[in-house]
C-alpha cells in the first residue's frame, strides 16, 4: 500500500499534466473560433463514418434476422403438419419426422428470372445439378407453394410456377382433399380458380388451402392460398372458387427446393 502511495506521489505531476492539458483543450476548442469549427467538422466526419460503420454492421445483423425470419416462416409451415422437426444445416436444412427420420431436404435458392403475367409462367433459380436440384422437385417460398422443377443444368434450374396452366396441384381445404385442379386463368395477379367442388361442401371465404398427402413432391401442410370468393354457378351443382395464392409471385426472391428423401422408394410402389 505504501509502495502504491509512493508511486502515486511520485507521478502526481502526470495527473496535473493531464488535467491542465484538458483545460488547454477546452480553451483551444472552446474559445478559438477556427479550432472550434475544425473540431466540429472533424467530429461530424468521425460521427458520420461511425454511423456508416454502425449501419453496415446493423444491416449485416439485419440480414441474419431476415434469414432467421425466413427459417421461422418455413418452420411454421410444418408446425401444423405431422412432421416432427426442422433441422437447419449450413446451406440446406432437413425436415424430419417425429422419430427423427429425414423426410425432406430443403435447399435455399435465389430466383434470377421470373414471369407472372403469362399463361405459362416459369422462373429460374440459381441452383442446379451441382447442388442436387433435379427435375420434378417441389419448390416453395417462405409464404407457400411456388412450383415444380422442370429442368436443371449444372448451375440453374427452370421451375414451372404455380401460375402455369400445366400445373396440377390437388388442394386440401379444411383438412380434406378435393380431386380437382387449381386453375391459373390469368385474370388477376396471384389469383387462381378451383372448379368442380360441390356446393354441399362446407367451404367459406378465408379458408386455407394447403398441400395434402396426395403429392410426393411437397410435404403436407404447405399453404397454397386462401379462398377469396365462392361463386354459385346457376344450374350447376358446383362452386366456382377463387383463391389468392400464398406466394406473391410478383415479388419472388428466395425459394426452397424440396427433395423427398424417400420419393424414389415410394414411386415404384405406386406404379405397380
Amino acid at each position, binding site marked *: 500500500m505504501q509502495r502504491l502511495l509512493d508511486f502515486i506521489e511520485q507521478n502526481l505531476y502526470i495527473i496535473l499534466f493531464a488535467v491542465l*492539458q484538458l483545460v488547454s483543450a477546452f480553451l483551444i476548442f472552446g474559445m478559438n473560433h477556427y479550432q472550434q469549427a*475544425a473540431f466540429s467538422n472533424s467530429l461530424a466526419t468521425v460521427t458520420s463514418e461511425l454511423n456508416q460503420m454502425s449501419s453496415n454492421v446493423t444491416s449485416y445483423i439485419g440480414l441474419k434476422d431476415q434469414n432467421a425470419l425466413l427459417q421461422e416462416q418455413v418452420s411454421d409451415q410444418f408446425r401444423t403438419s405431422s412432421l416432427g422437426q426442422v433441422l437447419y444445416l449450413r446451406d440446406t436444412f432437413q425436415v424430419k419426422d417425429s422419430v427423427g427420420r429425414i423426410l425432406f431436404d430443403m435447399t435455399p435458392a435465389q430466383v434470377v428470372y421470373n414471369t407472372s403475367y403469362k399463361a405459362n409462367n416459369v422462373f429460374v433459380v440459381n441452383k442446379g445439378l451441382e447442388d442436387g436440384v433435379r427435375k420434378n422437385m417441389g419448390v416453395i417460398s417462405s409464404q407457400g407453394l411456388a412450383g415444380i422443377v422442370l429442368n436443371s443444368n449444372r448451375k440453374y434450374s427452370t421451375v414451372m410456377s404455380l401460375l402455369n396452366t400445366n400445373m396440377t396441384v390437388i388442394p386440401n381445404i379444411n383438412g380434406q382433399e378435393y380431386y380437382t385442379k387449381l386453375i391459373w386463368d390469368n385474370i388477376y395477379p396471384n389469383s387462381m380458380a378451383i372448379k368442380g367442388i360441390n356446393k354441399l361442401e362446407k367451404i367459406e371465404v378465408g379458408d386455407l388451402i394447403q398441400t395434402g398427402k396426395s403429392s410426393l413432391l411437397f410435404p403436407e401442410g404447405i399453404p397454397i392460398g386462401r379462398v377469396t370468393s365462392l361463386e354459385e354457378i346457376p344450374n350447376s351443382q358446383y362452386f366456382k372458387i377463387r383463391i389468392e395464392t400464398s406466394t406473391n409471385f410478383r415479388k419472388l426472391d428466395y425459394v426452397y427446393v424440396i427433395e423427398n428423401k424417400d420419393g424414389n422408394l415410394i414411386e415404384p410402389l405406386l406404379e405397380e
Partner: protein
Amino acid sequence: MRRIIYWIFILALQVFVLNHLDISIYLVPQVFIILLIGLRLDISRMLQILIAFGVGLLIDFFTSTPGINASASLWLMVLRMAFLDRQDLKEHIANKQPYSLKVAGTPYLYTVSVLVVFYHLYIFWMESIGAIHWGKLLSTTLISSVLALTIISILEYISLSSSE
C-alpha cells in the same frame, strides 16, 4: 532579482517584438520557451508543470490564442523532463543551478534544438488544424525554429559573456 529581470526581458521581447515581426508569414519565432527549458534543475516536477502552464497561458493572452501555447508548453515541459532524465545532472541539481549550456554542455544544444523544433511544430499544427498544408507547416516550423535558435544562441552568448 537578475533572474526576474531576465524573465521580464524575454517575455517582453516575445510579446512586443517577436510576435509582431512582419518580415514574413513564415517567421514567428517562439523564443520565450528558453525560459522554460532553462528552469532551475531542483524545481519539483509539479511546479515545473504549473510554471509551464502559467507562462503558456500568459503568451496566449497576448496572442489571442487561448490554450495553444499553454498546451504546447505543457508538452514541452514533459519532454524536457524526459531529456533531462537521460543526462547526468545530479551535482547541478544539488547546486540548484538553471539548465544551461554552461551546466550541461553539448546535450544542452540538442535538447534545446529538439524542443524548439517540437514547440514550433506543435503550435503551427494546432493553428492550422483541420486544413493542414504539410509543406507550409514544415517550412514555417523550420524557418521559425532556425530564427528562434539564432536568437537563443545570441542570448546565451550574452549571458555567458556577462557571467564571465
